[in-house]
């Protein structure tokens, strides 16, 4: 049970405090409900670029990192399709530095022309490092645009192309910041050796005067996919990769929990059905994975496998489909369901070890609508029935059309 207290400021900022006196540290996690889903198609990669710019100075604090380091702190952030999440770890006695830094950059990020120019260069190198200078680097670009035709999930978080990052006008960046970086679009979580009442007072002191409101545009929803889709590409890679993509509901739905268990049965652990069959028993792949995206808008079920030399896409796909059908028709065994329960319990216990994980999870659950999901989610998992697993897998992965990607190697050994 992860205990916490919750308070909402007048300006809409949600503040959550989890006290943990076993640690001398405090973690401050600020989650903004903005991700690549909030971008326009002409300016993709903007949410992630802005994440970089959040470290480039605010009107009262020219240098973000040095004062934090002087307080013994460390920080990082990430952007995904739905959120941008910032976290600071600091010795608990220096907590207030984190509030000073986070509140100033929420209120008045400077966004100078110079810092924009430098960070564009940095992000372009990140794009190169993640997508252009690695084999399979464009996998996300191809698979996202195959599965989605309308929704902004159709482009990856890093952006469609380096030119989007290079060419985005500075005013567009500033407008994006104003629209999304407001207290009513944010969740502040503090976890560690802190006193909740003192934290709430500190939140009021530093964030209370931020009088900004978010202005989040409506996001175009993806129409139901009615036809099967197929894409084949050839690249300079040594192994073929197969991707099979299915649509599913969002993280708020019961379907999310059912499919989380179903995909665990398929590919969590060496003994799982796909991994055991395709990489050990009847080797056709070097690795295979089946997971769910867990997005706030309707997301995906992804099957991803690297084929061994000499194995055809047709044969590999046939085996994957066979395993999906078996699960839909017969469901999981009692042993498998108990295994999932044990693994879920282990995950739960591990999730309660590190402050950064607890803080992030509290923030994320609050962004879904209820911070207490951090405790109650496990109860939801325990109520999922075998009948639900069969029906949902059948509905999503057999009765609905899939998107298939054949990523072919041009240099096979």
């Amino acid at each position, binding site marked *: 049970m992860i205990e916490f207290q919750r308070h909402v400021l007048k300006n809409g900022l949600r503040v959550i405090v989890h006290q943990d006196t076993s640690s001398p540290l405090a973690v401050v996690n600020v989650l903004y409900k903005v991700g690549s889903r909030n971008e326009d198609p002409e300016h993709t990669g903007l949410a992630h670029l802005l994440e970089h710019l959040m470290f480039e100075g605010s009107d009262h604090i020219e240098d973000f990192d040095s004062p934090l380091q002087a*307080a013994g702190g460390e920080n990082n952030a990430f952007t995904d399709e739905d959120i941008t999440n910032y976290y600071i770890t600091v010795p608990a006695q220096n907590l207030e530095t984190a509030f000073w830094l986070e509140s100033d950059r929420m209120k008045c990020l400077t966004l100078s022309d110079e810092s924009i120019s430098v960070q564009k260069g940095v992000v372009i190198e990140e794009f190169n490092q993640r997508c252009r200078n690695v084999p399979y680097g464009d996998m996300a670009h191809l698979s996202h645009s195959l599965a989605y035709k309308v929704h902004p999930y159709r482009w990856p978080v890093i952006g469609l192309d380096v030119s989007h990052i290079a060419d985005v006008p500075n005013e567009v960046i500033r407008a994006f910041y104003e629209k999304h970086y407001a207290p009513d679009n944010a969740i502040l979580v503090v976890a560690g050796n802190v006193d909740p009442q003192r934290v709430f007072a500190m939140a009021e002191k530093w964030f209370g005067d931020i009088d900004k409101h978010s202005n989040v545009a409506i996001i175009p929803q993806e129409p139901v996919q009615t036809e099967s889709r197929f894409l084949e590409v050839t690249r300079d890679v040594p192994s073929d990769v197969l991707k099979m993509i299915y649509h599913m509901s969002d993280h708020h739905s019961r379907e999310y929990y059912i499919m989380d268990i179903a995909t665990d049965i398929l590919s969590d652990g060496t003994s799982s059905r796909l991994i055991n069959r395709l990489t050990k028993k009847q080797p056709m792949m070097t690795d295979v994975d089946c997971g769910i995206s867990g997005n706030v808008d309707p997301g995906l079920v992804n099957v991803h496998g690297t084929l061994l030399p000499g194995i055809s896409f047709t044969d590999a796909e046939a085996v994957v489909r066979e395993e999906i059908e078996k699960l839909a028709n017969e469901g999981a065994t009692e042993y498998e369901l108990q295994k999932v329960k044990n693994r879920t319990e282990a995950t739960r216990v591990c999730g309660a070890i590190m402050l950064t994980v607890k803080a992030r999870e509290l923030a994320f659950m609050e962004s879904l609508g209820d911070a207490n999901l951090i405790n109650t989610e496990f109860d939801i998992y325990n109520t999922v029935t075998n009948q639900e697993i069969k029906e949902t897998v059948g509905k999503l992965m057999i009765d609905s059309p899939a998107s298939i990607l054949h990523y072919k190697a041009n240099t096979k050994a």
Partner: protein
Amino acid sequence: MTTLDRSKQPEILGIEMPNIPLLEHTTLSNGADLYVMHGGTQPITRVDICLNAGPHRAKKAGVAHATSVMIGEGIPGMNSEQIAEKIDFYGAQMWQRSTGAYTVISFFVLDKFLCDVLPIIEQMIKCPTFPQKEIDIYLKKELQQLRIKLKKPSFFAAHTFTNLLYEEGCVYGRVSTEENIKSITRDDIVAFHKETYTPQSLKIFISGQPSQRSIDEVTRAFGSQWCDNADSFTRAMPVYRQWETQTKIIDFPGAMQASIHMDKVSPNLDHPDSIPLNIANTIFGGYFGSRLMSNIREEKGLTYGIGSTLIVRNNGGHIRITSEVEPTKYDIVVKEIANEMNRMRNELVGEDELLMVKNYMKGSIMSKYETVIVSIDNLIPIILEGGSYRRDCEIYNMIEKITAEEIMELSNRYFIPEDYKILIVK
């Protein structure tokens, strides 16, 4: 009511050395070292079994790692699938790491299930069956994965650099190749296991919230002389290769970035320079606000990341600088790295910067000990190299007292640009 002054940082309070939990040490009846560290708030136990079975002991590259993976693929009465089923069922996580003289087999599990998984792991270590079928599958997978990795310029650069730094035949410079993987046989693995998976030089770490029953079970499993020890192993020494020029450049067609690797030998773990160099290296390139990051990433936008890592070993440690940079500007980056080295050598670190780094490092040490089953990750490599688990106390004390003059002096020994071998892959 006082107006909020956003231009002023709130007061910073001092950062003390965190409490390092006691590492209880016992010697088992077979001479093995057992270390136990209690801590944390969750009922998880982690066990790390450190065998003197690392790659430096093998005759071929890849054999040590192959053995460490293959032990999990069959034991008397259980095949690969059955073993995986059991380990997964109890929610245990198992992994292995082979480096230098040691292979470490690690697992963690809810303490209540430890006695269910331990007998399986015990048999993996003592009497694995090494099924040929599983070895074939493993080698095929290793081959494919190596081919994929070598398509990545940054991996190719690190791989090639390791090989080029040392003389032909020196184990420190041995890297995996296709020919090498294809040459690994079951006999190699069986022989290596027989020679090295013994109680000789065995060290076991138990951390988290182990019950006494768990500790007793681990002691029973690994505390006896379950087989003969091999002849004693003389630790391998690094033999460095002479380069005709300081810099080697290798073309990698299609590379979208230039990969820069620079290397120099660092002082041994017990050398008086080892601990203070930690601090000098942090300022130079060891954290986000370092000289290298500030210059090459934050000022010039030429890279997503650049860093200088101090690898501390009993013997054969080094300082390694790496970065993936804008492909047409690698020469500028190399020049700037040299400039930053010379700044460290010729200019005293300013008071503000020094205080900032000291506090940052103290905070970093505090974070390391947040939770015992994570902090053990930092302690095991130091102990395997012959260091003390309380090394961070020495580092903390050095952080308190080191001066800008001492840092400058150290820089003039270890940050001389001409001393570094440089590899560019572009």
